[in-house]
Each structure stands twice: as structure tokens, then as C-alpha cells.
């Protein structure tokens, strides 16, 4: 009986790999997406259960303790977290995966320092896995901290890119030294250096770029898992890790493209850092508007386009927004939602929120389709969005967001902007839209402001 167990494990991993591929395939089409995660989930359960049968395993209690406690904690936190906080949870779980791969690599390499035979290919892949897994762990933690609001600033200093570049070279150089001098102390320094590198790389990156960064670290983790899979001769890890590594890389490129930026630019460009100085204060006055007046403007409009942004997510105002939209529709107003590819903190973030509130598919339009419609629109209602409607991206070549495609809200007849304060957006760039003659500012939390708009509509 026992001689069949290794075969059973291999076959099970093979089935798991197929389920992952099918699951990912299904997740990439809206109709089948829901089932896709279940396919992948079944694969994960099969792979996990069968792993317990691995010959010569010990420490079962430790395994069960770690597995059980982490599963419960992650499951509960994942269930509890608000829809709006999803992006940072993805970052957190991704960092955990990267960390896991890095620790596996460190363990295997440690065994090599204690005299276990390990050939050059395996050693080098284990080390690369430690490096990128470690970067993914600390980098994702920083991304989590930034999105969660625990780290509210970008930390930059002159020559930072050069410093980080030199540090990265130092870590890699020391890695090559460690490869030739495999000793425990060298290994720990290399591991620690990888973790510090993740911190340093991510600290200067602004919140607006976080989606791209998380996606990039997702791909990193996939690669790290794949390499450590090679070290452990585990085909499920090799295939699944590389699958995610490749898919994640492409996804990162798609996201960066949607922002008209390159990945290198995201990592090493300092967006919104240097240029915020000159523009301030020379744009005239912002014109405030009362909620009741805004409600009247929209109620008597023919066409209204709503542009949701991160402010909507923060205020959890998607349900109120849908309630207001229904009231407008009943009044005969044609309402549409315009979604910028990177509105919110992740591509598709706004679609998910609106879907949660029950907004039907056909009211939501992509940037390409809606931009031509703004000039025929009476009122554009911008809710907590800033950089994605900043005309500077189209008109001002000196702006650091120049070239990023935007929603051309400024072309509509009237613009109402719901905004919490007068500050700049996440990219730290002043927005000329707010000072235009046809723009009115409705200051306040999105939840409160939309409630007031609903009240205003009721009183008509």
C-alpha cells in the first residue's frame, strides 16, 4: 500500500495543477468567474490533504497548529473586512505567500550550510526565491500599511533611487558571495537584506500607484513559489507559481498601461513629489454649492454622468449612491456611471463596489465609451475622484501625470465635485478642474453629501 503513496501524491498534485489552470481560465470571464475560484479551491484542498501523506513527515502537531491558526485568522479577517478594504487584504495575503516562499528557501539553504548536498541550480533558484519572496513580503506589508492608512506619506529623500539601486546591487552581490561561501551567517544577512530591500523599494511609491505595485508583488510571489517548488521537487508549486508569475506580470503591464505608465516608471519615478510646488494658489477660487442646489441641478438635467472614485469607497456610500440614482431615473434623468480603469485603489475596484450596491451592468461605462458623451452631459457628478479627472493629464506637459488617460469631465456643461477637503489627490497634484467656472464643489464626506442630495431630491 505504502509504495503507492508517492504516486498518489504526484497524481493529486497533477489534478490540482489542472484545477488551478481551469479555475484561472474561468475567473477571466465574467460569466464563469464565480465558479472559477471554486475549481481552484478544490485543487488547493486536494493538494493540502494529500501532502499530509508525504513519507517521513514529522512535526504533525506543529503543522496542524500553524495551518489551523492561520486558516482561521485569515478566513475570519477575510470574511469580516469591508468590501472597500479588499485591496489591502489582497496585498497582505500576497505578502504572506511571498514570505512563506522566502522562509522555505531559507530553510533549505540553511540545511545546505549544515552539510546537505545541494547542486548549483537548486541553490541559486532557492536564493532567488528568498530574494524576491522577501521583497514581496515586506513590500506588500508596506502597501498594506499605505492603503490601510497606517503609513500616510511617501518617504522620499534626494538620491533615493541611486541609494536603492546601490542597495539592491549590494544585496545581489552579497548573494553571489553567499552562493560561493554557504554559511549560516551569510545566509541570514542575505535574507535580511532582501526584506530591507522590499521596504526601501516600496516606501517612496505613492498610493495612486499601489494597484500596480501589489500586482507586481503578486507576480513576484508566484515566481518565488515556482522556484522554491523546483527546490522541493514539487510540481504543483512549479506550475501554479509560474502560472501566477506570468499572469501577474501581464496583469501588471495591463494596469500600468491603463495609467499610461511603465512599470519602471512606477517603481523609480517619483510621481507627485517634486511638482506640487509651483501650481498651488494660482488657479483662482473654488466655488461651493449647497446639496439642495445640486439636487435641483441634477433633477432637471437630461443627462447625468456619475464618476465614482476612492472617496466613495472610503465613505461606503455606494448604496446611498444607487438609491439616489434610482430617484433620478424615476424623474426621467438619464444616468450613467463612468469608471476610470484605475479609479479607486485597484482596477475594477469601483465596478465591484457598484455591483455590490446593485447597479446593473449596462449603466456602467468604460472610459473609452463615455469620454465622447461628456460634451452632451448636463451634470457630471464626481464623487471622491481626483487624479482620474484632472485635465492637467491631458493639457499640461509639465505635470507628472501628463499622458495618463482621464475621464474628460471638464467638457460637460456642469460639474459637481463631492470632496472631503480642499487638499490634493493621492498623487499630490493640484487639480485645475476644481477651479473651472462650470465646476461647483460640494464639500463633505460622500456618505453625508449623497444623503443630503437624496433629501434634496425628496423635497422637490
Amino acid at each position, binding site marked *: 500500500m505504502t509504495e503507492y503513496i508517492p504516486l498518489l501524491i504526484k497524481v493529486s498534485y497533477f489534478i490540482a495543477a489542472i484545477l488551478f489552470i481551469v479555475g484561472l481560465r474561468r475567473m477571466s470571464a465574467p460569466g464563469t468567474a464565480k465558479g472559477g475560484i471554486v475549481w481552484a479551491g478544490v485543487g488547493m484542498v486536494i493538494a*493540502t490533504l494529500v501532502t499530509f501523506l508525504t513519507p517521513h513527515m514529522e512535526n504533525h502537531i506543529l503543522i496542524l497548529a500553524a495551518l489551523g491558526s492561520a486558516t482561521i485568522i485569515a478566513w475570519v479577517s477575510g470574511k469580516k473586512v469591508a468590501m472597500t478594504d479588499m485591496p489591502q487584504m489582497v496585498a497582505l495575503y500576497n505578502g504572506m505567500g511571498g514570505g*512563506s516562499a522566502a522562509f522555505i528557501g531559507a530553510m533549505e539553504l540553511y540545511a545546505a550550510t549544515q552539510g546537505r548536498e545541494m547542486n548549483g541550480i537548486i541553490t541559486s533558484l532557492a536564493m532567488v526565491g528568498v530574494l524576491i519572496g522577501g521583497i514581496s513580503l515586506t513590500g506588500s506589508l508596506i502597501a498594506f500599511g499605505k492603503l490601510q492608512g497606517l503609513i500616510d506619506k511617501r518617504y522620499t529623500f534626494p538620491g533615493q533611487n541611486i541609494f536603492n539601486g546601490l542597495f539592491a546591487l549590494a544585496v545581489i552581490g552579497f548573494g553571489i558571495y553567499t552562493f560561493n561561501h554557504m554559511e549560516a551567517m551569510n545566509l541570514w544577512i542575505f535574507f535580511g537584506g532582501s526584506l530591507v530591500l522590499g521596504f526601501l523599494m516600496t516606501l517612496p511609491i505613492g498610493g495612486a500607484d499601489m494597484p500596480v505595485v501589489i500586482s507586481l508583488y503578486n507576480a513576484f510571489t508566484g515566481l518565488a513559489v515556482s522556484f522554491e517548488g523546483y527546490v522541493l521537487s514539487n510540481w504543483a508549486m512549479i506550475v501554479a507559481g509560474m502560472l501566477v508569475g506570468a499572469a501577474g506580470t501581464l496583469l501588471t503591464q495591463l494596469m500600468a498601461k491603463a495609467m499610461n505608465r511603465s512599470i519602471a516608471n512606477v517603481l523609480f519615478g517619483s510621481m507627485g513629489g517634486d511638482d506640487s510646488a509651483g501650481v498651488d494658489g494660482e488657479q483662482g477660487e473654488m466655488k461651493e454649492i449647497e446639496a439642495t442646489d445640486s439636487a435641483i441641478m441634477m433633477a432637471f438635467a437630461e443627462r447625468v454622468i456619475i464618476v465614482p472614485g476612492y472617496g466613495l469607497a472610503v465613505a461606503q456610500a455606494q448604496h446611498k449612491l444607487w438609491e439616489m440614482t434610482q430617484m433620478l431615473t424615476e424623474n426621467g434623468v438619464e444616468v450613467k456611471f463612468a469608471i476610470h480603469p484605475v479609479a479607486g485603489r485597484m482596477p475594477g475596484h469601483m465596478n465591484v463596489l457598484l455591483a455590490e450596491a446593485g447597479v446593473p451592468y449596462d449603466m456602467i461605462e468604460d472610459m473609452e465609451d463615455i469620454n465622447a458623451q461628456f460634451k452632451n452631459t448636463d451634470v457630471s457628478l464626481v464623487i471622491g475622484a481626483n487624479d482620474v479627472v484632472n485635465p492637467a493629464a491631458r493639457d499640461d506637459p509639465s505635470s507628472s501625470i501628463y499622458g495618463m488617460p482621464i475621464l474628460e469631465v471638464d467638457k460637460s456643461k456642469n460639474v459637481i465635485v463631492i470632496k472631503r477637503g480642499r487638499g490634493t489627490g493621492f498623487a499630490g497634484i493640484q487639480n485645475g478642474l476644481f477651479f473651472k467656472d462650470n465646476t461647483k464643489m460640494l464639500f463633505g464626506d460622500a456618505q453625508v453629501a449623497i444623503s443630503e442630495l437624496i433629501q434634496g431630491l425628496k423635497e422637490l
Partner: protein
Amino acid sequence: MIDGIDAFVAVYVFMLAAFVGNEIISKVPVVLHTPLMSGSNFIHGIVLVGAMVALGHAETQLEQVFGFIAVFLGAGNAAGGYVVTERMLEMFKTKKKNKDSGEKK
């Protein structure tokens, strides 16, 4: 360690898996970017099985500590990734229903 198979077989698998991953994503609509990132985040939670094997073969106390951390982090990746992805995709299900019923009317 790859069971006596030529290391090049692994290189071929790396390459093929990379192409498959690329192919799957290439036609995905923007709406699904976030759920898909989350879903692929779940899939690399497979690192859990490697962590389990590594901890299962740990001998020294140091290895046990490292292995424990690895299993903990890997399980967190898998469980959390699944829950979050499922919750995101749950909404697409509702939306599809709405759309379907709307078309029927």
C-alpha cells in the same frame, strides 16, 4: 532533486506554464482585473504544501521555527486569498442575475 529528471524538463515546464498564464490573462476585461489578481493571489497559496513538507522534515529547532512561520504564512495566503476572491466574485453572480432578469422582461 527533481527525481532524477533532467533539470531541463523543469525549464520546459516553467516556459509552458508561463505561456499558459500569459494566454489566460490576455483577454480579460478591466472589470475582472481586481478579482483576477486576487484569484491568482490565492493560487500561489499552493506554497502551503511546500511549507508543510519543509516543516515535516525539519529537524533542528531553528528549522521548526522557520517551518512554522512558512506554514502559517502559506495557509494565511491560501485561506485569506480564497475568502476575499470569493466575496468579490459573489457580486458578479448577483449582477449577472440582475442583467439576465432585466433582459427577459
